């Protein structure tokens, strides 16, 4: 047995899901559960957000936060998921890691866009402007451009498997944006407020806001994994169809 195959088997023992067929089985079971959980969390989160008291300064508009903040978190979490997939794609050259990376990019772009759009809607009544070239907004906008660039790159190759390595390298190179977004509010003291949730010992917001925010965050995470698993399943199926088509075309050519 060559070293290549021993590595392959040990890797698949480590994560049984690394086998696409087993992954498909897992996804088929997990997607309905996750979907129901997500719907439930969204229903609960949106209801609690709705009955949350108004802020003494911001009034109704504070409720935008329950949509805006989790979207921004997810925008960054998705990039982290993509980076982990990129490492898997470079180190083990595993197709499933590439599938995960590729399918997460559009989701990340949507979450980033949602964070920017809701932030803009929130900024108009609160700051009096739709857009400001503030450090955090600008860095999130750059994240959106990175996502769109990666999507464009993933579609630029004639043979999808050729895109795997370029995509992974570019994803890992772009990871510098995450700390910049995270610390932009501390480094450049511009319009956007600093973090008020990460201090877990004494959260800087009352629990009436804190709890709905966490439920909404959980709902967003559930939504991400549901959609991610579904689109990974689609990607695997479309690759199988593609290889079947290739095979039939080849057999026709030789016959």
């Amino acid at each position, binding site marked *: 047995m060559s070293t290549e195959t021993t590595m392959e088997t040990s890797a698949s023992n480590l994560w049984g899901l690394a086998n696409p067929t087993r992954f498909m089985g897992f996804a088929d079971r997990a997607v309905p559960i996750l979907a129901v959980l997500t719907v439930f969390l969204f229903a609960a989160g949106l209801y609690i957000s709705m009955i949350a008291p108004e802020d003494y300064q911001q009034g109704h508009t504070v409720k935008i936060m329950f949509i805006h903040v989790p979207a921004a978190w997810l925008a960054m979490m998705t990039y982290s998921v993509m980076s982990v997939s990129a490492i898997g794609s470079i180190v083990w050259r595993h197709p499933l890691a590439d599938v995960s990376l590729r399918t997460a990019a559009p989701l990340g772009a949507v979450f980033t866009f949602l964070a920017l759009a809701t932030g803009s809607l929130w900024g108009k009544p609160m700051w009096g402007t739709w857009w400001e070239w503030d450090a955090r907004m600008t860095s999130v906008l750059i994240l959106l451009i990175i996502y769109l660039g990666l999507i*464009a*790159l993933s579609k*630029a*190759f004639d043979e999808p498997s050729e895109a795997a390595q370029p995509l992974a390298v*570019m994803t*890992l*190179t*772009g990871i*510098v944006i995450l700390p910049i977004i995270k610390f932009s509010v501390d480094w450049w003291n511009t319009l956007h407020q600093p973090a008020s949730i990460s201090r877990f010992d004494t959260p800087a917001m009352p629990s009436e806001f804190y709890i709905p925010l966490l439920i909404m965050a959980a709902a967003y995470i559930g939504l991400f994994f549901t959609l991610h698993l579904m689109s990974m399943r689609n990607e695997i199926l479309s690759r199988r169809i593609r290889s079947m088509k290739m095979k039939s075309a080849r057999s026709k050519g030789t016959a």
Partner: protein
Amino acid sequence: MTALIIREMHLAMRAGSGALTGVLFFLAVITVFPFAVGPDTRLLSHLAPAILWIGALLASLLGLERLFAQEREDGSLDLMVMQSHPLMLTMFVKAFAHWITTGLPLVLATPLFGIMLNLSPFGIAATMITLLAGTPAISFIGTVGAAVAVKLPRGGMLISILILPLVIPVLVFGIGAIVGALEDPAPFLPPFLILCAITLFTSVLGPLAASVMLRHSAD
């Protein structure tokens, strides 16, 4: 390695490629700006460092598409990947040669263009120093983009889209250092040192990522 640098220089000196085109493009970008913002000299001298930096950035991105294209066409790229030298070192030399042929001429042309934009001599000196420290980083990051796009038939635009977000820190600290030099309360040294640090950091990371990329695309 020196042979590779000399070869790159020779290629760049040939008409229609590299150094001269880059400077011409730089000149064209700078000439367009006064048409867009109006020929108000006070406004122009205020904007001059930013215009020079953006011009340098765009001019550096221009040649990236061709960085590996020729090697790939005539097959010498495979030789580079297979030779006994570490590929990372070859990538470093390629990036450095790219800087000498595109970045350095821009730095040398800056005084002339600075005068055209009514920049003070001190401002010209500050812009030159920051460009000298910052443009290598653009080349090093750009090498990654070029390596990614080697296999792409139409990669030019895509390289720019992928690379521009990554070079924004270079631009931020480059302009920050110039502002620090020209206006009193802002400090010059911290942003300038960060700029140097970015260049050193990318000089390791860029060639590494590019070599990972090329080694894969060779097989």
